[in-house]
């Protein structure tokens, strides 16, 4: 296991190299020019060229790439072309809201979806099953911003229970932190609840037909325990896979939620940086994502071994 972990963590290095190269290439393919955004609309082509030269953007791409890699090896992600701030600082500021939202969403989604899925499987074919399935299908198909607006309208504008927007760091107290996360979490988790509930239902449905479930019942074990300790535990591997995929999706895919609720997260940073062609920021963020994904997937694989003692690495 130790060796497996070490191997997997080492394996992030080639991943990062590949991602770095691909992103660098993509950036050079994409038109647009950070110098032009710096200079603004009224700048003349000559002025833009001067800024390009100043930023070192007119050097051959290979030189730029090597330079960047060189700095990377020294642990320096570079400085944003647009805002002149270190990329590490930008990422540092933005990672907390994203992680906070991702965590609350996943926790909430799991807490709701898993029991729903289990009950649906247990009462397969009943109205509960149909209701859960209907909910999860609808959850798939509502555009997230519509849901966000509706929740804002209901909870913030009409009932005035919760603020409309914004983020408060957890360092400023748990209550303000969480009140601002309630609506975004609700909005974002619907789709995950849908996804996880369906997978849970499908997997549990399958394990409920297994012999050991019958054994448990023959022992006189109560239904709740049959469902949780026997059926669900054995259905855990695909559920954990989906949750893992969900976390990965969450970290990069929360742009819309972040915009609707004005959360200063990584999703917005990425889109902003891409739209402004802020090369160092884009490169830094993608590297971070790649690293996180490797970690998440490693976590999932480790979770497999914990959940299913037969799986060994």
């Amino acid at each position, binding site marked *: 296991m130790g060796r497996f972990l070490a191997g997997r963590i080492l394996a992030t290095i080639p991943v990062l190299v590949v991602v770095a190269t691909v992103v660098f290439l993509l950036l050079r393919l*994409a*038109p*647009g*020019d950070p110098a*032009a*955004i*710096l*200079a*603004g*609309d*009224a*700048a*003349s*082509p*000559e*002025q*833009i060229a*001067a*800024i390009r*030269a*100043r930023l070192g953007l007119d050097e051959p791409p290979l030189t730029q790439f090597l330079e960047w890699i060189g700095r990377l090896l020294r642990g320096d992600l570079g400085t*944003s072309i*647009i*805002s*002149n*701030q270190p990329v590490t600082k*930008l990422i540092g*500021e933005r990672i907390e809201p994203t992680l906070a939202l991702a965590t609350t969403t996943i926790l909430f989604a799991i807490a709701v979806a898993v029991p729903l899925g289990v009950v649906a499987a247990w009462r397969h074919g009943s109205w509960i099953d149909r209701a859960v399935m209907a909910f999860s299908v609808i959850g798939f198909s509502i555009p997230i*911003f519509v849901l966000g*607006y509706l929740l*804002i*309208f209901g909870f*913030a*504008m009409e009932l*005035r229970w919760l*603020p*409309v*927007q*914004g983020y408060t760091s957890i360092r400023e107290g748990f209550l303000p932190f969480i009140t601002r996360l309630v609506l975004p979490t609700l909005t974002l988790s619907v789709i995950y609840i849908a996804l996880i509930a369906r997978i849970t239902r499908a997997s549990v449905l399958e394990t409920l037909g297994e012999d050991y479930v019958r054994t448990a019942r023959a022992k006189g074990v109560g239904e709740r325990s049959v469902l949780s300790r026997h059926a669900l535990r054995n259905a855990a591997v695909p559920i954990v896979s989906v949750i893992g995929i969900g976390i990965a999706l969450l970290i990069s895919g929360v742009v819309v939620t972040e*915009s*609707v*609720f*004005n959360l*200063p997260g990584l999703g*917005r*940073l990425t889109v*902003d940086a891409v*739209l*402004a*062609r802020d090369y160092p920021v884009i490169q830094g963020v993608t590297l971070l994502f790649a690293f996180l994904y490797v970690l998440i997937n490693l976590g999932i694989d480790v979770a497999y071994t914990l959940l299913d003692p037969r799986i060994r690495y």
Partner: protein
Amino acid sequence: QAKKTIKAVMHSGLRITDPIITTAYIARNHGYMIYDVLFAYDEKFEVKPQMAKEWSVSDDKLTYTFTLRDGLKFHDGTPVTSDDCIASIQRWAKRDGMGQKLADFTKEWVKVDDKTFKLVLKEPYGLVMTSLGKPSGNTPFIMPKRMADTPADKNVPEEIGSGPFKFVKEEFQPGLKVVYEKNTDYVPRSEPVSYMAGGKLAKVDRVEWINIPDYQTAINALINGEIDYIEQPPHDFLPIIKKNKDITLTEYDKLGLSGMLRMNWTLPPFDNVKVRQAVMLAVNQQDYLDAQIGDPDYYQLCPAYFICGSPNATDAGFPKPDLEKAKALLKEGGYDGKPIVIMQPTDLAIVAPLAPVTAQALRKIGMNVDLQSMDWQTLVGRRAKQDPVAQGGWNIFHTTWVNVDMINPIANIGMNAKGKVGGWFGWPDVPEIEKLRDAYARELDPAKQKQIAADVQKLAFELGMYYPTGMYRSPIASKGLTGIVHGAAPVFWNIEKK
């Protein structure tokens, strides 16, 4: 007593803090928070001293002498000196269009003493004070010499000015949040506020600019009292805002903004004046404004290149829509049916609607249109290309301007006719226009200036320099605030919070 804080949502997030390197309006707005200017326009568009106590011009109109007010201090505590002013203006003059023109006429800047300095011209120039009082585009903000010595194509490393608010560096999050605090050392002028001139009194302790990218959310937050101020709520939201009695809409900038349709003069078919003229006759401001703004209360058809409501306004040469004539001109121009590439920046809500309107108009007169959507950055990158369309070139793009930047032939960047070198995207090469602009610059008599401007406009419409797609105003939406200044930029002095 609790600090009074205004939370404001500006039209975009502040990322670049140097208002000289960029012409981005958000950087200009930021400039007005922390920097001060030597001169400013009042509501009659007359240039009034701001940091300057007084100024004088020699009889030969070649030497301008400026004296600074007492008590001016930068936020780091150092006094403002002539050196700072000269360095700042020289840096600005490298970037700004009018600044460059001024530099062309400038012989030297001379420091007399710490408070007095002189501008010596090579020959008389009519726009010295207009330039120094320039309220927008690149505004000649005064910064400490050490900052102003930064090369003009490099971001300044600090945010130190002498303006009514101080920049709180620790709380700055690019693209998300900017925090300003009242500069308690600021000595305002005693005159009342008038447009960009007069006493800049900071009446709140703190101003926070929060970037809420989703306007729906911003407006909900305003209604709920989480924020106090939205600089440019999209026009489609105004009906909702109007329903809310405690929200005020302030049209602070009477001149407003306008859109621009720009053709590429270097590529066929728009290298042919007939084809350009056909386009000028095919399009129609009404359609643009309907699509872009919708509410007639906030838009205005304007036949003037130099902006209705400004001293240079005239309708000379404005093309009346005439589809038949346009079709004929198209034929005469030998348009061969090749697709016209129109670039549409879909991520910029206010510019995005212009391109489809143009596309439909051109199709009506029988042009073949290739409307390409892209993000603004792609457009910005692509419009700089002088290559043929097949190699990534383009035929038409649209953009918008704050009108105060368009009010004379020098400031109006669309009138730059220097061609491929030194010109602006589209690269019209019209020596007559350049000659007229030069004449305008040298002209000292306002009446004659006006005449030259009208001549420029006539010729420019005839040649199709660009098509102005109409004027519109964007009101500020605010709640619980009074004293919003009517000026060229959304400034925060004089605003009181209940």
